[in-house]
């Protein structure tokens, strides 16, 4: 090998070494586990049993079943990312104007992102309490509507978790969108103004296409993070309450591994999640042509 190649190898070796320990080894171990039978009683003498865990996940009726949880995960991810992007871009468009006190607004809007998720989740859980929570106080006192059993009914509980995560997640998209907006050359808008373009025409023809290359990777990341967001689901719903009806796939994996000690089952579910996200990312990046140049 030439000295140049040795030099390159030496430069990337530390990164490869770290990756081997923190990514490759756990991933390969997880694959082995998924084809094994490691559980509480066989934690030390587990063995490979083929596709048993996968067959169990896809075919064995359970409460809650895989397909129901998967559907909920899709709804959870789609709803969250949709609102993150819509609210984020909307606020970024406002903040991109010449407003007085713009930096103060920007700081305020980033706050949800700056607060630790644990605190946010538990605060929102308290706010959703039927009798003493502020959400119901607002609903009953100012809107004159009946109080909602946010944490007791499955649908409402799921909605409560989504609302919490929407609040927590929009600042990220806002910051990304704001960065993208500020990089759009102003001359394009001036030219459009000369042509007599309306604001919605400028939005459709200039703003959205030019923030797309930045937003697509952010949305892809947002989908992966939201799909795998354990903290909010677990803490707001107190581990899937009521009756394990608010699980998404990743919270169910956590429960299977650390509450039920079904390590192989959890590993198999993790592998399924990995392939779902891999397929989505490849498909989305290809369809959205995110890697193409914008200008």
């Amino acid at each position, binding site marked *: 090998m030439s000295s140049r190649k040795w030099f390159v190898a030496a430069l990337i070796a530390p990164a490869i070494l770290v990756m081997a320990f923190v990514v490759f080894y756990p991933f390969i171990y997880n694959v082995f586990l998924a084809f094994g039978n490691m559980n509480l009683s066989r934690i030390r003498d587990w063995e490979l049993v083929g596709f048993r865990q996968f067959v169990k996940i896809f075919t064995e009726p359970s*409460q809650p079943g895989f397909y129901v949880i998967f559907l909920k995960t899709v709804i959870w991810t789609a709803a969250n990312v949709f609102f993150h992007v819509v609210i984020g871009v909307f606020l970024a468009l406002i903040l991109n104007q010449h407003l007085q006190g713009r930096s103060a607004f920007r700081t305020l809007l980033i706050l949800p992102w700056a607060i630790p998720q644990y605190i946010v989740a538990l605060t929102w859980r308290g706010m959703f*309490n039927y009798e003493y929570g502020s959400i119901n106080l607002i609903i009953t006192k100012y809107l004159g509507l009946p109080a909602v*059993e946010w944490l007791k009914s499955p649908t409402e509980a799921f909605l409560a978790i989504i609302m919490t995560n929407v609040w927590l997640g929009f600042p990220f998209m806002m910051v990304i969108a704001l960065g993208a907006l500020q990089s759009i050359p102003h001359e394009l808008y001036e030219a459009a103004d000369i042509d007599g373009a309306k604001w919605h025409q400028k939005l459709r023809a200039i703003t959205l296409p030019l923030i797309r290359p930045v937003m697509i990777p952010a949305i892809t990341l947002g989908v992966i993070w939201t799909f795998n967001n354990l903290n909010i689901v677990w803490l707001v719903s107190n581990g899937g309450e009521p009756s394990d009806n608010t699980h998404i796939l990743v919270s169910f994996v956590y429960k299977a591994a650390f509450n039920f000690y079904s390590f192989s089952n959890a590993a198999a579910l993790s592998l399924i999640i990995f392939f779902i996200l891999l397929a989505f990312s490849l498909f989305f990046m290809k369809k959205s042509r995110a890697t193409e140049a914008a200008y």
Partner: protein
Amino acid sequence: MAALVPACRQKHSDSERIVIWHQMRPDERVILQRQLTRYMEVYSAIRVVELYKETEELRSGFVIASIAGQGPDLVYGPSDPIGIYETTKTIKPLEPYFSTEYLGQFSASALTWYNNHLYQIADKIGNHLALVYNKKYLERPPTNDREWIEISKEIQEKHGYVAGRPNVYGLAWNYTEPFFFIPFLTGFGGWVFESDGVTPSLNSAAMVKALRFVRDLRDVHKIIPNESDYEIADALFKDQKAAMMINGDWSWAGYVQKGIDVGIAPLPMISETGLWCAPMTSPKGYSLSANVSPEKTERIIRLLRFLLSEENQLETVRAIMTAPTLRTLYNRTEITSNPIIMNSLLQIERGRPMPVVPEMRAVWDAMRPAYQAVMGGARTPEQAARDMQELAVKKIRDMNE
């Protein structure tokens, strides 16, 4: 850089460093830290490190760390995960290190034996629920379920309602967790296992009656809040917006410190069966990690003897009013003159030891969703009892496959 390494090296070698993982509350932790400081003053070569872990994290974290050859030397907590620890071979028997005379000083319930080996020695007995009441609202605690409901209604009527909600609830507790439901199940004559101790017995008439009873407390008698997890119930009682509460011995000292005129009483009797509502009781104590080397064991046992000593147990009793495990302490005036501890001991007497078999885990996980579904109005008590049983059997089968 290399010259700096010896200077940075820890002062204590691994065999001189003892690590304890525990799930003690802040007030318990303060006492532990004080005791450990005293210990390290006497044995200056030893460094004892205590690390707090939340209950679930302690259990699963200890199992995983131990299997990887890591983890603490001592693990402290309630006795219920002992079956899991033993099954995973993450703790080792303690009886080779203590004489029969020494162990004879402890209350029998302080020593957790499983598969003929001693796996835990406790410094506290109980970890149990009892009726906590605010003497501002009631002088005498109820002794049966009828009185319980009646007194609660009287208190609510007396203090009035705002927007249909009582200013003071008769009763509150964490009714999302099955652990808090057990007293009702036992009050109606039920239990979680058949007599073999491992087969779930959740689909029973007692279970149906107990589920209906708890649901009726809210929906028919309206003496408990519409939603109540641990934090809500605790806050209601601390704010004096609940006259009575079902809570464990870990919480009582906090209520006293909060300035509430607290009374502790055994949970009432269910009139229909003539049985007391019996909570699960469990000792809280220390287990020895299977990874501890023989050379280090002696040092750990010496520390364990110190932590379990009369002086240290008495210090804990005085500070947080938990029941000690050394029998010699039961006649001390600190205990006999304290009505909270005496009632706590009476409740322990009426309680039932929490099973330590790993199957208990499956039972909790099977009870929780169905119980919550009954309280959420999604399932009938009959359906819930059937579902619990079915799920528990499935989970145990999965666990053992």
